[in-house]
């Protein structure tokens, strides 16, 4: 049933702007740019999807289908996960391309390297924790949960820029062109992925709990 719901998300809820946001992983090809911002655009795409879903009475429609209430939440969060994993895959391609075409360090935060993907996982994880549980408390409210999540994400992106100058481990180990310090960056990537998995599961649990209490009108 979840597969069918995901198909429904792609067919009926995917917002045209979200395709463009996915394409903005190409920002990684710009020299001296805070690449974390490219992940934020995907979050903006998820915001547009949630807005479109609200305007099209998606939750009401979905609830009339033969599914359980809990699955409405699972499908939406898994849809976001799919979009984010696609964005990370595209980012990985852009990182490789960046290495081939530019191969220059980034003066505005993390270099285009393996650790950047770990940073992407962390940013998406924080977004899940702040956006979905607040949104599923009342599906008609999207703006405030998104603003709260966006502030946290931008604080982290700014922190990345600061750390890339101020913290030796960040500056000399993580924020370096590939393939140097490959093992440490891989560990950072895995830690980011683990945080992402944990925060997504926690977000799912909290969102479902709140949505089950929600009256849909």
């Amino acid at each position, binding site marked *: 049933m979840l597969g069918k719901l995901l198909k429904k998300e792609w067919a009926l809820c995917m917002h045209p702007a979200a395709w463009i946001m996915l394409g903005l992983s190409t920002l990684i090809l710009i020299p001296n740019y805070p690449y974390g911002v490219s992940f934020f655009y995907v979050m903006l795409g998820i915001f547009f999807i949630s807005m479109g879903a609200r305007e099209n009475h998606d939750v009401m*429609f979905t*609830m009339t289908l033969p599914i359980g209430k809990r699955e409405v939440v699972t499908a939406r969060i898994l849809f976001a996960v799919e979009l984010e994993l696609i964005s990370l895959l595209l980012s990985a391609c852009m990182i490789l391309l960046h290495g081939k075409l530019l191969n220059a360090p980034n003066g505005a935060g993390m270099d285009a390297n393996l650790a950047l993907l770990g940073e992407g996982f962390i940013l998406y994880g924080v977004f899940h924790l702040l956006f979905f549980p607040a949104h599923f408390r009342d599906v008609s409210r999207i703006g405030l949960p998104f603003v709260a999540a966006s502030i946290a994400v931008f604080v982290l992106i700014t922190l990345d820029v600061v750390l890339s100058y101020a913290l030796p481990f960040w500056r000399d180990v993580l924020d370096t062109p590939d393939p140097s310090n490959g093992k440490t960056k891989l560990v950072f990537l895995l830690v980011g992925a683990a945080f992402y998995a944990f925060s997504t599961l926690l977000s799912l649990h909290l969102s479902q709990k709140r949505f089950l209490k929600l*009256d849909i009108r």
Partner: protein
Amino acid sequence: MNTILDVTDLVKVYPGFTLDHVSFSLEEGKITGFIGRNGAGKTTTLHSLLSLLTPDGGEIRFWGMDIREHEQEIKQRIGFVSAGMSFYTKQKLRKITAITRSFYDNWDGAKYQSCLKVFSLDENKTPEMLSNGMKIKYMLALALSHNADLLILDEPTSGLDPVSREELTEIFLQLSEEGKTILFSTHITSDLDKTADNILYIAGGKLRAACSLKEFIASYLLAEYTKDDADAASPLLIGVRRSKEGFTALVRTEDAGKLSLPTRTANLEEIMVHLEKEA
């Protein structure tokens, strides 16, 4: 006669409104009209049936199964149509149908095509291109194509012109003949005069009547009188209203003989209007 739906002591509490221990049941193959003024609790009740709302108390059983435990199984056999809803306004009906059909075990493609023809629906149109009546027909087409045994219709004739309303009521009668059970909420009582077998009447969150339409109509008479008539101030008069010629009020059929006022059979609207006035 099989019981399709059993609602027992349904309670939903909002600030300023309580759906107060509502209990009723639906019989297979019957059309049940659910009447009450706006805000009486009709939509709250219907939405509770579909788990859109979380009731604060009570039990809802479809075909003997508790909705909380058998939601998916039950929803396979239910079609929900609401006049107020418009889904995915810019998507083609073809696409919405393709997604919807994938959720139902008993989807009947031939029946869907037949519904499109009967309802004159063009699959290449989007919901925003459809009139309210056509939107309802499209939702009905979806419900009928998955062979729903029970149709829950929330104000389906609201906002429709008289011809479209007449068309829909004919469709409901035909569906009832085919054995479908219909629960039909409305405040346009004239639609029910033509179609309903049973009546649920709700006011202020409380179910005031749950019986056959004939029984409901037969339980009241309408008295038309002037202030000079004897018994004009009788406490047996229910929901006294001014009219052009004087006053009208309901009288319980068993009390009619106790009054010297002229009475006649009341229709559903007159009964509802006077009962609301009394409330």
